[in-house]
């Protein structure tokens, strides 16, 4: 799958309270959560994105809470993928499990706010159309690739689990 969009840049340690503040956790609807994505640290973020845009961040993206509302809010506001130098453990799981495209990229420092990127998820290759550069990322391990290709954890379990198959 090819994803194309403009870059919105963030720094290190973007936490789940930044991504979606706790006061909005009375909803589980991704569109509603999406309206408040990242508002505590960039109040006009949601107003300035077009569908397909891409978040590029530093280290430890998604640190903090378990709240799956965070990747849901990112999906819900129209962001197509997140690139970061590293991801926090629970956010990493959540993104895999709900099917939010994300890639680890060491040199996110070479990408600037507003750059146009084209991401080929099948090869992990990222084209920076604004800077005419190509960045390579590591493919997901096979185990995770299976979950991703099934469209998330529950579908993967449904395909492999006897309790689900029987019904």
């Amino acid at each position, binding site marked *: 799958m090819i994803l194309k969009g403009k870059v919105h840049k963030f720094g*290190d*340690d973007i*936490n789940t*309270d*930044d991504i979606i*503040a*706790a*006061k909005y*956790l*009375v*909803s*589980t609807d991704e569109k509603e959560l999406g309206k408040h994505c990242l508002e*505590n*640290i960039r109040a006009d973020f949601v107003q300035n994105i077009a569908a397909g845009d891409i978040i590029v961040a530093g*280290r*430890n993206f998604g*640190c*903090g*809470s*378990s*709240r*799956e*509302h965070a990747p849901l809010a990112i999906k819900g506001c129209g962001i197509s993928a997140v690139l970061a130098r*590293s991801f*926090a*453990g*629970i956010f*990493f*799981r*959540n993104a895999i*499990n*709900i099917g939010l495209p994300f890639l680890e990229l060491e040199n996110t420092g070479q990408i600037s706010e507003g750059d146009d990127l084209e991401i080929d998820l099948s090869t992990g290759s990222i084209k920076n159309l604004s800077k005419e550069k190509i960045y390579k990322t590591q493919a997901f*391990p096979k*185990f*995770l690739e299976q*979950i991703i290709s099934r469209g*998330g*954890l*529950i579908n993967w*379990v*449904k395909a492999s*689990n006897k*309790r*689900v198959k029987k*019904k």
Partner: protein
Amino acid sequence: MGFTIAEKILASHSGKKAVSPGEFIEAKLDVALGNDITAPIAIAEFKKSGVKKVFAKNKIVLVPDHFAPAKDLRSANQCKILADFAKEQSIKHYFEVGCMGIEHVLLPEKKLVLPGDLIIGADSHTCTYGALGSYATGVGSTDLARAFIDGKCWFKVPATHKFIYKGKLNKWVGGKDLILYTIGNIGVDGALYKVLEFGGPVIKQLGMDDRFAMSNMAIEAGGRAGIIEPDARTLKYCQGASRKFKVYHSDKDAVYEKVYEYDVSGLEPQVACPHLPSNVKPVSALTDIELTQVVIGSCTNGRISDLRVAAAILKGKKVKSGLRLIVIPATQNIYLQAAKEGLAEIFVKAGGIFFTPTCGPCLGGHVGILTEGERCLATTNRNFIGRMGSPRSEVYLSSPAVAAASAITGRITYPEEI
């Protein structure tokens, strides 16, 4: 080659002789936990899967604690989703208001989590139970939904970092200070995707409440778990458990990716400044920071020994005029015990409030939300931007002793000063 306690627990639950860091495994869970924020998504995903019955009604724990007692209509709806699901599925360990407490204090207290267990919780501070010598880790709602289906979870086996604490602790210094000092030293991603294993002579001397506070904040350094090997104190704590458990120890020749050794003699109480738990300074460097609110409670420091320390400092004293002191015992048992011992009276007479168990202000839920320009010192675990309310408010993190002393003076204070 030997193995760490984390590797042994993960191996035994995945039917393998051994596991090594980086390996993907599927493992059987002893306990799967959800709360009023995370379980509603898990329950919806479970229902969508088409499976009719949860894998085991006695291994799932549901605790409405974040926005409970329901702070508003929408929170009430979320709490009701838990109550209805618990009833429909005959979930044995559902804790309604009146029985409930903050999940990570409640589950050990009820002996629902035990040494050697493999536990997931759809809450990042699930790592608290590592203090019992279990492998306990925070996951998301979809992981919890999957656990409802077949009682399993996928893991990428983390490498372990060992932290050894030596020396003699000063008065007023405990588990909270040790973990803040550690996070300050290694950073909020210093143990990203690692197990933190805490040990050494200082840890052996710590009571269980202090150990829970340390394991609780392993996630604040990026850790997947924060484990302390069980000892006589752990086993005493687990007396009366209604099921058998297995005690694991790390081998002498276990492989650690990193080993840190700290001499903590002379360490001052530690305080994390806005807006990261790693922004840590000794308390004496911050004594001119004025406060509008002090919160004593949470899954980090809402236990009885925390309340005892705070009450000993506040006894016969008054909270600084204009400052709000909010004390929240973490469970009903702790609430009762604090009342029996006269601690509740001390807090109220000092001019504080003594609230019913809830996560409440820690995540800016309810009971003590901060507005623009306000500053709180809390015994909680996170001080991110807007964590307790307005993005233009500030949260500092400390031990209950520092929090209590600071409530009296209205600024961050070394308890020695009182």
